[in-house]
């Protein structure tokens, strides 16, 4: 394992519920939602990489969960923090207090998948048009495109 990944493993250890190495140079850390901010602060304090993207993946109505992935990159290494956000309590803490530039990613996540970002500085729509119906989230699986 790359030393940088080893550092990441030890940094995230206190909160990780599961750690996996799905591919070379990749580390997947599953977390409870509440622990997002502490983990990110730890990575940030150690200057471990930068937040490269936030991906939301809807697992489908049967599961009723959106998986939110925070990808941190450092050189060839990618650390992915994995959280599960249920539909009926679709909330997540904003990381903008630590990483201000995450604002765009959070705005996208919230409009596309219907997740409320608690404490984000700007919750306006970023991509979706002004006349887009409220409560419709295009990247949810239940949203089917006509055409």
């Amino acid at each position, binding site marked *: 394992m790359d030393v940088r990944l080893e550092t990441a493993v030890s940094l995230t250890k206190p909160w990780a519920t599961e750690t996996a190495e799905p591919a070379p140079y990749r580390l997947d850390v599953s977390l409870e939602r509440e622990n997002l901010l502490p983990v990110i602060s730890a990575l940030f304090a150690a200057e471990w990489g930068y937040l*490269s993207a936030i*991906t939301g993946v809807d697992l489908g109505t049967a599961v009723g969960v959106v998986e939110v992935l925070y*990808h941190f990159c450092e050189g060839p290494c*990618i650390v992915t923090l994995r959280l599960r956000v249920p539909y009926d309590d679709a909330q997540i803490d904003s990381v903008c207090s630590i990483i*201000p530039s995450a*604002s765009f990613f959070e705005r996208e996540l919230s409009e596309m998948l219907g997740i409320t970002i608690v404490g984000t500085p*700007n919750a306006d729509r*970023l991509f979706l048009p002004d006349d887009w119906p409220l409560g419709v989230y295009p990247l949810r699986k239940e949203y089917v*495109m006509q055409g």
Partner: protein
Amino acid sequence: MMTVAAPTTQKSEKFIVPIGPQHPALKEPGHFEFAVDGEIVTDATVRLGYVHRGIEKGTESRNWAQNLYLLERICGICSHTHAFAYVLGVEQLAEVEAPPRARAIRMVVAELERVHSHFLWLGVGAHEAGFDTLFMYSWRDRETVMDLLESLTGNRVNYSACVLGGVKFDINGEQTKGILEGLDFLEKRTHHYLNVIQQDALFLQRTRGVGVMTQQQARQLGVVGPTARASGVARDLRIDAPGQHYNDFNVNMILETDGDLAARFVVRIRDLFESYRIIREILSNMPEGDLVVKRMPRKIKAGETISRVEAPRGEAFYYIKSNGSEMPERIKVRTPTLCNMASVLTLTVGQHLADVPMILVGIDPCFSCNDRSVTVTQPSGQREHWTWEQVRRFGIEYYQRQGGQ
């Protein structure tokens, strides 16, 4: 966005200046709002979405091969980057590896694309600064790269060089010769441009010390590509994460430390020399062999993967998840501009409104992911709408007045 207290030396008058969403020389619409105090920017926000098409969702109802063409059309400037990142990801999932010759050809196209993109940007940057002569020159020279790309791929934009498991065409001796000749010409011109941007006093007035981003800031904001490298942050995926591709040929890191607009110009121009060198090296060591793998499955194994490619503007990030069927479960694309945009908005705070167009252009924004227009709101609630062109003129005239003093 972030708010930093602006220097309030003069008696202040607050406005909001919205820019956009359409601009004659730039291609895409976008809507920015700048709050200004006097002429100093105090806050900046952006509204994108004029060109948001819903591609990520679209991929979920198209098969793996169709998606290649859809994703390639996320952006007409760095179309190969998107195709490249996508095929890399899908190949990782399917556990196939493109043959060495195909990998080399992909890199040649990627570097040619970088050359075309940097020339394009140089022109646009020059135009924003009011240097239309440089704009015209750089676009004239850019046609040379376009000819090369066309001779290879048959199309000037959206080349479709990649297919799943390989590439679509070969490079023959004649084409190689053409490329080498083209590069010689471009190299000569590039020296000239490097000279201009480093020595022309008027140009430097618009770029030196403008929009400075320190190394520390660059790290924290998570900027990527030339924008990061201009601030001394060594971030280049061709070197950091060569994958199966850039392993075969080495790439040198191009770094500048000033972190201002001038440095962003210099980094990109020096990047060009590196690209010329890489292309030459690949062409003279072209591996033999097939262009496509023997068998590329139609259904891709379930799983998820991340692939990253160094686009002309920085890291393009792809997350691909397959459920084992003919269509992807989820594809997430994060373009470099989205990363850099947040940073640039932070940078404009505390700067002169006159510098805003140049600072924005400094990251080489690619708005197929983004938009622009300006509105000015006075405290009385009065709102003025500026077009990008007006802001550009404001900037040029401001500096003309400065020059006249």
